[in-house]
């Protein structure tokens, strides 16, 4: 099996991706998840093996308890490895790393050169980036949860999630459920979804990051027509696609994300809204899953949280991916799009 898939991926790399599209009709959602997961593992292994001779870099840590310097391995060690030298609290609470005071770095992304390192958790004085990463992670996990939650008879095709906007009150994921044209989730179903979500984050998955080539990405998401359509526009700038894995779920995101799902505390899935597309778009309708969550350390009384959940029940005003002008473009990387547009 393994060999088969490597072979397949190689051929795919060589031949391009268009031929593979029909494949999606032959595998179920569960199989697709497993396959994607497997490709991710292989690719990760390949990238680690590529490093070859191990070089040392100097990481100067700034912050509490004291400034120190770590000698780490280039392209192998991550900020998370650095926190292992500092203590368990740092391992659990650090959500994001800041390199050289400006570059926001995933906790599980290997360091490439000597730099200074700061760690950020949710209660720092300037938490905008951490909050964004948190919100992005919540969306991504919502996608994973949506994939798992339905029965095997219901195919779930993830579409995308927009750039995180905390002020909108909810994190969202747009999902295509082709077999459910008119689905109005009952209260009980929402509760079950929420329970699935919480169950997923309680498994304490680390969020692994990988940069893959556009072709490999196409192969990973071969069963997902929406994602395959989005990949070329994402890979336009440098031919690479950033892919994250949480548990066995793999998804495209620009990043950065927080370190671990255990850092998501109180969460609830509040509503599922239906988005209907215009006549021009290829996709007729999507479901927008909405939820609200708080990080682990943040304790909010139930009344204040109920205000938040009530608000999150309303349809999120983020742009619908089915709008006529933005068909086929990836919302997650709106900034990239905009900058590209500006350049053009």
């Amino acid at each position, binding site marked *: 099996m393994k060999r088969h898939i490597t072979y397949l991926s190689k051929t795919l790399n060589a031949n391009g991706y268009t031929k593979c599209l029909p494949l999606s009709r032959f595998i179920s959602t569960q199989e697709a998840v497993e396959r994607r997961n497997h490709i991710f593992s292989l690719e990760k292994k390949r990238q680690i093996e590529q490093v070859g001779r191990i070089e040392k870099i100097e990481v100067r840590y700034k912050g509490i308890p004291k400034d120190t310097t770590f000698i780490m391995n280039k392209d192998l060690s991550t900020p998370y490895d650095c926190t292992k030298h500092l203590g368990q609290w740092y391992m659990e609470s650090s959500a994001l790393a800041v390199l050289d005071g400006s570059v926001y770095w995933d906790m599980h992304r290997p360091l490439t050169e000597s730099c200074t390192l700061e760690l950020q958790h949710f*209660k720092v004085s300037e938490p905008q980036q951490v909050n964004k990463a948190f919100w992005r992670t919540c969306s991504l996990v919502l996608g994973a949860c949506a994939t798992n939650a339905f029965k095997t008879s219901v195919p779930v095709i993830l579409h995308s999630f927009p750039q995180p906007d905390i002020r909108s009150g909810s994190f969202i994921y747009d999902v295509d459920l082709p077999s459910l044209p008119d689905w109005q989730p009952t209260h009980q179903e929402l509760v079950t979804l929420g329970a699935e979500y919480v169950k997923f984050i309680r498994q304490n998955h680390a969020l692994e990051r990988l940069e893959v080539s556009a072709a490999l990405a196409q192969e990973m998401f071969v069963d997902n027509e929406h994602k395959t359509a989005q990949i070329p526009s994402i890979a336009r700038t440098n031919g690479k696609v950033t892919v994250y894995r949480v548990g066995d779920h793999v998804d495209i995101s620009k990043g950065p994300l927080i370190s671990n799902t255990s850092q998501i505390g109180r969460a609830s899935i509040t509503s599922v809204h239906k988005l209907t597309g215009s006549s021009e778009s290829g996709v007729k309708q999507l479901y927008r899953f909405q939820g609200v969550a708080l990080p682990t350390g*943040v*304790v*909010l*009384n*139930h*009344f*204040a949280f109920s*205000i938040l959940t009530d608000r999150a029940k309303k349809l999120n005003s983020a742009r619908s991916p089915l709008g006529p002008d933005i068909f086929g473009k990836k919302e997650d990387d709106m900034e990239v799009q905009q900058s590209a547009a500006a350049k053009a």
Partner: protein
Amino acid sequence: MSTNNLKLLCTKFNNLKINYVITRTASNWKPPKYRPPYWYMPKERVLTEDNLTQDNRMFIKEIIQDKLQAQAAMESPLENISQTETMQWTPGKKRVGLIARKIGNYPMWDKDGKKVLTTLLQVIDNHVIKYIPPENFKPMIHKVKQPQEHRRLGCMLVGAENIDPSTVTKDYCGLFNSVGMLPKRHLCRFMVSPEAALPTGTPLYATHFRVGDHIDVRAKTIDRGFQGVMKRWGFKGMPASHGVTKTHRRPGNIGAGGEKARVWPGTKMPGNMGNRWRITRGVKILRINTKHNIIWTLGVAIPGETGAMCYLFDTVLPLKKHKTSPPFPTQPPLDNLPLEYYDDSIHEFESPTISFEEI
């Protein structure tokens, strides 16, 4: 096969065994009723630091205020029921009671110029929260099946005094959410006749009772802590002098010897005084204020200190029961009520000075 037989034998022997352990219990002993009522929800919450900004705290308060306003604006369900539909009162019927707060005492004068001390009871935000009809109301589940009981009273939950929902548990709030209300600080169960049942969300006012009625007041007495027999039971103590040493305030002998050489149950001894539920029966209502919902009752015998909660019912004393029909099932909110009602025997402060006629 053999093991099977052995087991059988063992069980047989076990059945033959005589149980020599005799538990000494009274014949009328029943297991204590520890189970809380089934509508009970834990109320206390561990308060945590929310790290909210001042603005956001104000916002949460604003929302609570808006909800309270909406709650106050909600019209009473009684208004929709026409007068003809309401049940007629008959002497045997039990009405719902009120939850009130004791806010102090002050004197009033009757028409003969005699000073009477009164207790002020304030009825705050009383609303009907839930009604359980008699057939559904089974307060206790017994292991041994009880003989079919003929229940004729339903259970009505009444809440009083709005509180900040963030200070109580979510479960407790849920009790009130079903009626569309914010949680209340106090919740009380009243047993009512099915005819006197009220729709949920009905507000109750002080005019539920009339001036001149007699009520029973149930409240907790003042907690006086661990007290000796002289204060607790009014014992005489022992002489201060005449050779008495070390036993000036002690109870003395507590029983005889021989067969009775033990402390008899019910012996008056030192212990915690007060903080018990007590009912004062047949308290007369002298005056009612409809604006602030205050009830003035005769005497100062209402248990508890100032600020204590008490429950008011129609009295059960046979001679002081209602003679005529009280507001049944309760007084609906009316706009044109007079501000104050006075009992006939009481001198109103607005009326001129008392003067006596020569006979």
